[in-house]
């Protein structure tokens, strides 16, 4: 099995789907000859041609709108946002057009909007956001957030094959930092299913995206202190895997909800409500959130470091929770 970066795994997944289904095509800014700002689509123009790898003007609303129109005609567009921060410019097309079409009048809208999100690379307030919750609060969309290279490939392929609009959050910090063996064959990772990344018994951390690695790092440290943490990777935020969340909480009885996104209105709030409603009797301590604070993502390294959750912050939270 070849060792692949998270980025190459996404690229491989898109490539395979382009080969498999002529209805799949790409559109976005600088994705053709330049291969995309992060080179996710490198080589695709040469391989698949201009009709299927379309460089567009800087027009996020039209990019998303055009993807909707093409999807309605039976094509399977994959639209790139150069940075997921800019998805705000296509917001109306996503939440009012794409998300509501099937519910309102029946057609399928098989499309993917993908791009880099997340902080940790000193990108500043407009190249670092984790804005997935804008879309998790929009019925009709699916929101996918891979953490591993294996999943990145399997989830992008499943997203392209899905008949609904999927917002696919790639984490730019993971692009070239995560390398692992990724099968060359055709496989998909189903949407809506979480994965247990580490088995534990004392406490569970429920998280997604780059924070999966932070959680695993913290769990390794805490294991040395005799605390066995479970780590659950949600993988899909909408619709999310309620059963896996509840199963892990019931098993461990203590839960930390971890995300890079800011605190108020974050995924942790939703999960906390779910757990309080459906697993209250199973809890042996308060539901704990470890998240970024409610601020924009700051630029300067000390500020950004303070902003981001890290293993140390998780460890401290876990020690406090363990005392219950």
């Amino acid at each position, binding site marked *: 099995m070849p060792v692949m970066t998270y980025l190459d795994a996404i690229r491989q997944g898109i490539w395979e789907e382009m080969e498999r289904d002529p209805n799949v095509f790409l559109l976005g800014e600088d994705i053709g000859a330049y291969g995309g700002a992060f080179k996710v689509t490198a080589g695709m123009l040469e391989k698949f041609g201009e*009709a299927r790898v*379309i460089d*567009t*003007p800087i*027009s996020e*609303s*039209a990019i*998303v*709108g*055009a*993807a*909707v*129109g*093409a*999807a*309605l*005609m*039976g*094509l399977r*567009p994959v639209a790139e946002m150069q940075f997921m921060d800019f998805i705000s410019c296509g917001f*109306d*097309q996503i939440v*009012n*057009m794409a998300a*509501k*079409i*099937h*519910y*309102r*009048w*029946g*057609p*399928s*809208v098989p499309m993917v909007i993908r791009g880099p999100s997340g902080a940790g690379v000193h990108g500043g307030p407009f190249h670092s956001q984790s804005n997935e919750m804008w879309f998790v609060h929009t*019925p*009709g969309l*699916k929101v996918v957030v891979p953490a591993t290279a294996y999943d990145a490939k399997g989830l992008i392929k499943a997203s392209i094959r899905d*008949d*609904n609009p999927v917002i696919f959050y790639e984490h730019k910090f993971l692009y070239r930092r995560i390398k692992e063996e990724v099968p060359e064959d055709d496989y998909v990772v189903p949407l809506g299913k979480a994965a247990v990344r580490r088995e534990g018994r004392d406490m569970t951390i429920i998280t997604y995206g780059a924070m999966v690695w932070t959680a695993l790092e913290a769990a390794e440290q805490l294991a040395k202190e005799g605390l066995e943490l479970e780590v659950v990777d949600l993988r899909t935020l909408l*619709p999310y895997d309620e059963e896996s969340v509840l199963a892990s909480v019931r098993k461990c009885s203590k839960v930390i909800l971890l995300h890079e996104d800011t605190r108020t209105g974050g995924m942790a709030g939703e999960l906390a409500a779910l757990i309080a409603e459906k697993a209250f009797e199973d809890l042996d301590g308060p539901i704990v959130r470890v998240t970024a604070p409610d601020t924009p993502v700051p630029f300067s390294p000390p500020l950004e470091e303070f902003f981001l959750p890290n293993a140390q912050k998780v460890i401290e939270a876990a020690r406090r929770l363990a005392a219950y």
Partner: protein
Amino acid sequence: MPKLKRARRRAAPDAATLERMLYFLKLTREAEYRIERVLYRQGKIVGGVYTSRGQEAITVGTAIQLVDGDVVTPTHRDFAAHVIRGLPLKDIFCNWLGRVGAPTRGRDGGPHLGDIRRGIIAPVSPVGAWCAVACGAAMALKRAGKGNIALTFFGEGTSARGDIHEAMNLAAVMKLPVVFVCNNNAWAYSTPVEKEYAVKSLAVRGPAYGMPGVSVDGNDVLAVYAAAQKAMARARVGKGPSLIECRTFRMTGHSAHDNAEYVPEKLKRQWEKKDPIDRFQKLLLTRRVMTRERVAALDTAIQRELDEAIAQAEASPLPDGADAVKGVYCEPGDCWWGKPSVVRGA
């Protein structure tokens, strides 16, 4: 000069088309009369009521030229587009009445309806968003290479939105087969044109994007027809998009609850005299395309057709409230809609 003669012949709609146009114009006027001034006032239609009174010629003069495989993205004031594309009147009234027999099964209402098998993409309330969607449909049509086009409507009020800029620019850059039709009805809700844009005519925006732009009398269905014919011909042979500004006047409030007191009486009276349907009917009678008897028979047939459609729609059941949570996602093999309606082979 046989070439020119042929071109002229091609430019003029034949008698059957002229008659069909009068039919759709009158059908629209009467159907919307029933919606706005009968069913709404009877309390049978709830929610917003938007009609195309006074601007029907724009939809009819353009959409009548669509062929199989074309796509249209109507606004909330393009009733005729739906019937021209073959959507049964009963289905349309079901939509207004929130019945299960509607294309939206009661999930959306009024003029928000579509049918992808007929190439109709349903509008949304953030107006003009569908112009970019039309571009995407046009990408698919261009790729299919069958000469099909996307016809997309928007109002002059909507022309101030960024979506229109992005869509027109994208269509021009990619030479997409899109015909942009602006129904300039002089009012964006209560806002007059001088507060909407600072150019004399929105047609100038066509060349600004690299596409032809023309301004026509939107109350003259034949002028609209001719401009659309030219624009569609260009689009069908791969020459790219065009913009047609159709000047008209909204002869009703923004919606049924709006009595449009802000519109000067004098202007209303002026535009009443330019009514597109009266004008066209007079022309057909003068040119002897139709006799008075034939027009009268058409009027009677339309009333009968509407009576039947409305009766059927009113007999259609209301949806089951619990169905509200179904069909949010399209899942293969488990689709609440039965089978998602898709067009294939585009």
